[in-house]
């Protein structure tokens, strides 16, 4: 019976993969290669590849002041978002680590930002940061036009994004803390370790596997932030918040330069991939399990 089976190829398993593979093929693999293809061309307004220019789109980008600014802005943005978002999540997770009255309310509150859309959050922050009626200026007694000042706009958008991402980070860290063996804390207390010492020598190392995973997810996510920038600053003022994703959007859908936008997409993909690979390299060497 076995030999009979082996003779003819069994097609049934592939049938179960058809639905997902079809979607991946049409909306992921095909557009991925098409983006690379487009990035080598000048296009017309309909996005049809017209003139082959080779790597010219890339060379133009890498020599343009505007794109280098985008890279710099994106880098600063990602660092603030990742560090801020993870820190908020970690603080909340540590605060909810031990049982106390109301823990369920608080853990829901800390996770809540993950359920909020970037666009909705952006509109709330817009009013909070409003120069005359906003709560931030009123509380601080300042008169700063947060979102129109090139010095502050990027930080505002980044902090908003960090807040949005903190919810899911809280869940990751809570799960990580739950996995740390309680008894090591008891032993440490007996040995006279202070709370701070315990945090740095027990909690953080215990979290390192999940910390690594969260870091990778956060970096990838931060690179993709779009809605809040579109709504709050539209890349301005003076290109101060023109992160790569926004620059792609503007090039493609306002300037109709699909070739250049495609080249930026490819560069974005390469950056994300390199960072991910480096992270996995470091993980193999460093993280203690």
């Amino acid at each position, binding site marked *: 019976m076995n030999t009979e089976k082996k003779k003819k190829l069994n097609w049934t398993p592939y049938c179960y993969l058809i639905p997902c593979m079809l*979607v991946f093929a049409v909306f992921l693999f*095909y557009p991925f290669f098409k983006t690379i293809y487009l990035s080598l061309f000048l296009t017309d307004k309909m996005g049809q590849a017209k003139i082959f220019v080779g790597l010219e789109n890339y060379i133009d980008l890498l020599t343009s002041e505007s794109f280098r600014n985008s890279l710099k802005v994106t880098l600063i943005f990602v660092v603030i978002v990742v560090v801020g978002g993870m820190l908020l999540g970690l603080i909340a997770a540590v605060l909810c680590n031990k049982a106390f009255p109301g823990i369920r309310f608080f853990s829901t509150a800390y996770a809540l930002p993950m359920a909020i859309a970037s666009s909705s959050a952006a509109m709330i922050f817009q009013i909070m940061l409003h120069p005359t009626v906003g709560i931030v200026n009123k509380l601080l007694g300042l008169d700063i036009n947060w979102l129109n000042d090139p010095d502050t706009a990027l930080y505002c958008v980044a902090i908003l994004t960090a807040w949005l991402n903190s919810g899911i980070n809280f869940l990751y860290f809570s799960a990580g803390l739950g996995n740390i063996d309680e008894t090591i804390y008891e032993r440490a207390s007996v040995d006279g370790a202070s709370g701070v010492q315990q945090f740095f020598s027990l909690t953080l190392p215990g979290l390192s596997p999940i910390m690594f995973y969260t870091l990778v997810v956060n970096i990838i996510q931060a690179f993709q932030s779009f809605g809040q920038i579109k709504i709050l600053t539209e890349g301005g003022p003076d290109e101060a918040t023109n992160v790569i994703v926004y620059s792609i959007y503007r090039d493609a859908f306002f300037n109709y330069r699909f070739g250049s936008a495609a080249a930026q997409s490819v560069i974005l993909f390469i950056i994300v991939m390199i960072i991910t690979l480096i992270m996995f390299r470091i993980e193999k060497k460093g993280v203690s399990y």
Partner: protein
Amino acid sequence: MSQSNDMALKSQNTISKEELLALKKEMNAKAFTKRRIRTGSRLVFNIIVAFIMLLPLLYAISIAFMPSGELFTTELNLVPKNPTVQNFIDAFTNVPLIRFILNSFIMAGSITIGQIITCALAAFAFSFLEFKGKGILFMVVMATMMVPGEATIISNYLTVGNLGMLDTYPVLIVPYLTSAMGIFLFRQFYMSFPMSLYESAKLDGCSNLKFIVRILIPLTKSAIGAMAVYTFINAWNMYMWPLLVTGSNDMRTVQIGISMLNSVDSQSITMMIAGVVIVIIPSISIFIVGQKQLIRGMFSGAVKG
């Protein structure tokens, strides 16, 4: 300190039962107050941090109930003096909010159901069936997680534009009908079942589809619940793709529709925030209801990796 106490006691060598009990009681009380202080300070810290974290939401709710005249003062106005629901009524009458909400429900609901079906089918094949190229195909699926959506969004837009699909439901739904993460999550759960479960079902004459519907799905309710909550919320909150592919009010989703309120004059800030509060409610409600499911199904697995 307790040590020196003991020493003292020993040297006296005359300790009655009552004294010992009293000492025990005292120490217990001390430990109790210590614990109470610790719990109390934990609570205080939590209240402070949670207040800061929820401030944007609380502020939004407060503004949504504020008459628009009250907002424009220089004094600190945290809570509305004369709460009103006028802003909510305005939001519903000035933009087709109900249509937007309906569109979002159709989109997010279809995406959620579709993803669960395609992911369950694929995960079933990857965990119970043997076929050529299984390892490579699984690697290919996992590799899709590395491709950021923005790397494909332009080409996708051009594709659906050429197909004349812009501004329809399918264009909002079809590109998101599967996800590598969902396949991975379901596969993790399916792998925990012994192969003999599948084999014995087969021997009893159970077809593959029947096995999925009758056995796998009921056994993996928590994974499906987690997946449903996560997918629905993400689809509900989607911004860039709906922004690109919808052009008419009939097709716009809540996130796009509500951000259109943004461009109107500053007098209607309170109405805009009321609209924001309305569109946040569904995703937050689903999150609160499904939070337990989500954590159990998704994050306990994520840690073990």
